[in-house]
């Protein structure tokens, strides 16, 4: 499992410097925002679902630490093309992995790189914030 140093070296800084899908969408079907009042991190997420209910396009914006930015960036690439249920399964596995519960790590793919963060509980919330925003954006739409 990667140490904090290794996670920074191999993953976090690269995505912090050049985050993927760092943009607002022109015609999002779903949107949510999240904020961590303890550290001031903010993330705003846009999704566009196609007629089949797949995530066709995703964009995020915000400010925060490199961990939160890298996690949001990798989340956007991981959920692209997924159905809402598939994206929620990723949420559950990612969340379980970082909170020390039994997780289906196979489906996580590259997201497994965050596994080492589980031993730094103070930073876990940085990595899960974007995912909570994703869940909120999709959950809100399902009710409507």
């Amino acid at each position, binding site marked *: 499992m990667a140490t*904090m*140093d290794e996670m*920074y070296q191999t993953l976090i800084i690269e995505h912090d410097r050049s985050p993927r899908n760092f943009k607002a969408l022109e015609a999002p079907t779903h949107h949510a925002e999240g904020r961590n009042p303890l*550290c001031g991190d903010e993330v705003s997420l846009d999704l566009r679902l196609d007629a089949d209910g797949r995530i066709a396009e995703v964009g995020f914006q915000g*400010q925060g630490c*490199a961990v939160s930015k890298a996690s949001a960036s990798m989340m956007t690439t991981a959920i692209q093309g997924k159905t809402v249920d598939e994206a929620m399964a990723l949420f559950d596995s990612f969340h379980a992995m970082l909170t020390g519960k039994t997780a289906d790590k196979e489906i996580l793919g590259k997201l497994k790189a965050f596994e080492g963060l589980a031993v730094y509980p103070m930073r876990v919330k940085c990595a899960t914030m974007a995912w909570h925003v994703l869940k909120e954006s999709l959950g809100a739409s399902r009710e409507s």
Partner: protein
Amino acid sequence: MSSVRAEFPIFSRTSRGKPLTYLDSGATTQKPQVVIDAELGFYEGWNANIHRGVYEFSERATMAYDGTRDTVAEFLGGVRADEIVFVRGTTEAINLVAHSYLKPKMTPGATVLVTEMEHHANIIPWQLVGATLKAIPVTDAGELDLQAAERMLGEGPLLLAVTHVSNTLGTINPIAELAAMAKRHGVPVLVDGAQAVGHFPVDLTTLGVDFYCFSGHKLFGPTGVGVLWGRHELLEAMPPFQGGGDMIDRVTFERSTFAASPQRFEAGTPNIAGVIGLDAAIRWLSAQDRPALERLDAELLAAGYEMLEQVPGLRFIARPASQVGVLTFTMDGAHPHDIASILDSEGVCIRAGHHCTQPLHARFGVPASARASFGPYTTEQDLLTLTRGLLKVRELFG
């Protein structure tokens, strides 16, 4: 290695497998062995509740608890022991004053004058009792604008609530001068001394303020215990803060009357072990060569500024002329939480975030900062390790 450091057992431990480099004394100080022994000794040897039993242990606990008022009164320059109220900490002390002193005086639109550098604990309690806040501005150097203070004190606030030392910048505010100014305008003064009392002696017989509060855990004592000092005539005129045992005179279902201060403000079984630990902490600190500790703090601060200036892209938030050992900064391209995580992997403990001073961070246009704060056990080696860690951050974030 200073002899002071040897009295703190925690420094024989490692953090993340590295020697402990503790630079977060602004959040909480480490505890000398005598403080740990005092709390342990009470629980192991003579634990009992106070003000209740006539048996030996209860008597002894009562004597130790109430006797600590004498220790604190002397520590604060020789004030009256019955002006010492034990609370959970600085936060509870301020809430107590807000509810018992300010609230009964509140009128629509009444203001409390604070400063831009206040900790949230010296902001929220006043808002909760309905006060409108006005804030004395902070200059680019991280100091209070005293001309503005003079003008704003003339605008009729009910109270001036000001920190003695900024928890974020380390600025030592000119409290005696502010108190004299406030007195000319007839404004009472509360001082948040949480960051001050561990760094330099405070004499409340000459400072000219009305309320002063601090926490035990920032003074090498336990968490969950603190002190509110208030002028006797003010405390005597204030209604209780919380109701319960130990604060009463006589209780009936029709009405109850209350004990005199300070007991009136100490409802319920207090943190007895904490107060005993606080007594040990104050005795320990008072026995130190305090001018020497102040000189050491100043020397390390100068050395720290010099070392950190060599780190490319590092910016200090402000650099006050008079301050305690605190270095607060940002780094280009690296968020404070990432700085703190990378330092953590080197065993270096610092604080990252807004340090409960969001308005001050807004004033300086940054959402968060990194803070290294010193204690009497801090060494030049700690600062070298910090600097090496920050150069690694620089290397990673390029």
